[in-house]
């Protein structure tokens, strides 16, 4: 399945792109993160758990075991700092 992955703020800059299409076998948020970490730096540095980040699936905050479906929009971003 294809997942539309978006990055914001520090992660957008670290990965050098605001978005990409990622092909993933059936799975959940944790599987997507594991796939991205296999790319090595900077992905592994940011997404393997040493630094805090948040994930939203189809614009709702989500956890690692949130299941993904073809065409889902998954956003990965630093803890928010608005307000």
């Amino acid at each position: 399945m294809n997942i539309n992955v978006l990055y914001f703020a520090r992660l957008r800059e670290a990965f050098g792109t605001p978005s990409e299409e990622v092909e993933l076998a059936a799975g959940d948020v944790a599987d997507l993160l594991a796939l991205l970490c296999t790319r090595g730096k900077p992905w592994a540095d940011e997404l393997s758990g040493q630094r805090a980040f948040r994930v939203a699936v189809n614009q709702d905050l989500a956890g690692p075991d949130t299941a993904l479906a073809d065409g889902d929009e998954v956003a990965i971003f630093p803890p928010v700092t608005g307000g």
Partner: protein
Amino acid sequence: MKIAVQPEAFDLGAEVAALYRANPKVGAVASFLGLVRDINEGDGVHALTLEHYPGMTEKALAGIVGQAVARWELLDVTVIHRVGQLRPSDPIVMVAVASGHRGEAFAACEFIMDYLKTRAPFWKKEVTPDGERWVEARDTDDAAAQRW
């Protein structure tokens, strides 16, 4: 209910007046205004850029306001958050809550701010004498949101 995400400035007094002028049952309006501070973590801040996640921002704010409306007896709520380039003393965010009595207005206003601070996808980047830097999230904000 009014929820807006916009680069333009807003008028707190006019927004508060809009909440009570149409409804003589309003006895209390609690409001909050968040501003760009010139000092953050000890360094002078010259400017601030607010990035957000279009689409999710509005959805997240509507969800937070919906939780407040379900929890307290409220008559109306306005939330406006700015994005883009801001300078010290510029207003960033306002939350105004109208109710019959003050206790519910205060609680809901503070709840909405605490949730907005931890759940609405906005990110601040500061320009300081040492260059640009992304603002780090504060643990005290997580603690504030977990009270509710």
